[in-house]
């Protein structure tokens, strides 16, 4: 990790670039204060693999019950409780655990940090999960572009195998579990769990249709498969060691524990923070002294993305919402992957919107027509508006294209005081996976709130045309 400016003042630690210690409770970042946090020696000196030892003394069913009781919400995007998902597996073997380390949602930076800085915690969490599910083959899928994470996880696995924590007869017991490092090759869509499985089978990473291909029933090689996010599983060792009751002391009733969030864009102190779930408002996070300390140059907030590039945007009206999945959902967006992107009043909204849409257009896997064609058109129309060639009906055209991808009311933040409805989230979709609808979110968010900015660009283009 050789960032040349990694000693900049807002980096708490040069060896975990971007991590900011906010003095709050820590569950997954406890070792980030050590330069050698990624080594087996440091892990063992600080309680590493104690959770596994404890788990092995209990029955798999008891371990699974503890996780279920804790309400460990998935941190990959959908926020589904891990304990309940694990219960969906039919009694069929072989079965697999696939750890999703493909982190590529725009704005998201935390799984990479967890893999680079504390790979043993992730391996331990994965092993406990394998034990609870009664399976002996686990694949740890790390995003292709993350060379350092691949190295650190590989080294950790080599050390853990040699020391008897992974592989045959774990800790001298009869329990044997293999954990295999797998790595990708650059494709955002592979983060979607069924595409991840296709990719792990050596195929093009295109999503499968759900139903019938729910991974818990028909996953890797059409066998029952649990896919969990890196951060989700990184919580498991602490949870095992301290118990569900302790875990539930952090965060809110509905969303216990902590969560790693990355705040980027126009804040004074961007960074990765471990915060309690469900109790910190967006305002606290952006303006609080322990967190981001305000908008840069004390500018005004224009808009923010509350949960990764796929999430509909929020505005100052939503600042006082708590970062609670349910509340954010009923306000028309999602907490997604813990990625918050802050835009101040100097932001060109059309440009920002185009950049996210261009991402989805580039990353569409091409399997279904509304997404493959629709995202390309969305990009094209936005580009011409930005370039000063917008046409009078382009705004309607954009909304129309969006309707073909996610029909019905658009998922946008509600503005009751402006006479606009609350709309349901997640959106309806004509596509196989949610990538297509995700491309619609920035467009509807931006047009609904800043229609005037789109119109101004189009009008300017029109008058330029008339003059010419």
């Amino acid at each position, binding site marked *: *990790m*050789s*960032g*040349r*400016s*990694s000693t*900049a003042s807002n980096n708490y630690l040069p060896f975990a*670039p971007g991590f900011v210690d906010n003095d709050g409770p820590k569950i997954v970042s406890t070792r980030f204060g050590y330069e050698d946090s990624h080594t087996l020696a440091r892990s063992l000196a600080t309680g590493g693999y104690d959770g596994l030892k404890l788990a092995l003394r209990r029955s798999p069913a008891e371990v699974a019950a503890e996780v279920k009781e804790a309400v460990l919400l998935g941190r990959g995007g959908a926020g589904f409780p891990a304990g309940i998902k694990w*219960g969906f597996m039919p*009694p069929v*073997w072989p079965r697999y655990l696939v750890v999703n380390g493909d*982190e*590529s*949602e*725009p*704005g998201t930076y935390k*799984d990479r940090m967890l893999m680079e800085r504390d790979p043993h915690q992730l391996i331990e969490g994965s092993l406990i999960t394998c034990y609870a599910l*009664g399976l*002996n083959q686990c694949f740890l899928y790390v*995003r*292709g*572009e993350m*060379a*350092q994470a*691949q*190295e650190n996880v*590989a*080294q950790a696995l*080599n050390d853990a*195998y*040699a020391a*008897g924590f992974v*592989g*045959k007869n774990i800790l001298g*017991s009869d*329990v044997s579990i293999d954990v*295999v490092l797998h790595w*990708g*090759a*650059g*494709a*955002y869509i592979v983060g979607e769990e069924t595409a991840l499985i296709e*990719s*792990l089978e*050596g195929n093009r*990473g*295109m999503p499968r249709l759900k139903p019938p291909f729910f991974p818990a029933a028909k996953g890797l*090689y*059409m066998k029952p498969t649990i896919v969990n996010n890196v951060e989700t599983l990184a919580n498991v060792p602490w949870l095992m060691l301290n118990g569900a009751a302790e875990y539930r002391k952090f965060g809110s009733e509905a969303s216990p524990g902590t969560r790693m969030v990355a705040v*980027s*864009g*126009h804040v004074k102190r*961007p*960074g*990765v923070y471990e915060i309690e779930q469900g109790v910190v408002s967006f305002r606290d996070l952006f303006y609080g002294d322990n967190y981001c300390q305000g908008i840069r140059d004390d500018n005004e907030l224009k808009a923010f993305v509350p949960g990764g*590039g796929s999430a509909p945007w929020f505005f100052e009206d939503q600042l006082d919402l708590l970062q609670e999945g349910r509340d954010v959902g009923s306000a028309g967006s999602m907490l997604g992957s813990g990625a918050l992107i802050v835009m101040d009043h100097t932001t060109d909204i059309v*440009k920002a919107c185009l*950049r996210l849409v261009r*991402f989805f257009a*580039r990353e569409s896997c091409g399997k279904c027509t509304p997404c493959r064609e629709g995202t390309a058109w969305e990009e094209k129309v936005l580009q011409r508006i930005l370039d000063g060639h917008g046409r009078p009906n382009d705004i309607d055209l954009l909304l129309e294209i969006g309707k073909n991808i996610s029909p019905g009311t658009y998922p946008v933040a509600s503005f009751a005081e402006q006479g606009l409805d609350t709309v349901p989230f997640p959106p309806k979709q004509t596509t196989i996976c949610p990538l297509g609808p995700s491309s619609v979110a920035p467009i509807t968010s931006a047009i609904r709130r800043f229609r005037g900015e789109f119109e101004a660009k189009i009008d300017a283009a029109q008058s330029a045309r008339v003059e010419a």
Partner: protein
Amino acid sequence: MSRLSTENEALAREIIARYPRPKSALIPLLHLVQEQDGYVADDAMEHLAELVGVTPAEVLGTCSFYEMFIRHPVGKYKIDVCTNLSCQLVGGEELLHHAEQKLGIRPGGTTEDGMFTLEDVECIAACTEAPCLQVNYRYEYKLSNEDFDQLVDELRQGDRPEIPNHGTLGLVRQHIAPDRLAGIAAPEVTGTPAWFASRQPEPEAAK
């Protein structure tokens, strides 16, 4: 270029053995090819097809889906500048523009001396450290234009030995000693692990 060397073929076989089905090893194997040659050549794909028991067309099918696999020679250093939203907001596009000027190439292009290839890429999970880039998948954070120039000069002068040539990803590989392996089985092999069966409270209380 070519098929895998004898040494790399042995490595390939070791990787294949870690998967329940050989084809699952395809992405790691394509990376191995790219590490050997700097890009993925047709001959190499044919070799992989033999090794995992699929047709060369299937290997190409997989290879062509993933952005990191490149089918022609590129620069020794591939510089990927992120321009996605978090980076765009704090100067990612300006950094890319500066890189174009400095190197005299557009995204997708390679300098005449074969040293650098430039790309305009999507989010690389360093959004709080924007603007940022990767050189052969190694990070550089919060770059100013001067930082970029310095980086390029250092790379030209060979002052960044920790950054391997394009194609090489992690410098550490997973190796599982045969006596430590729990045992990878084909998906056709059914039955619960013995340790699990013996820990079930009731005979048929499988979950």
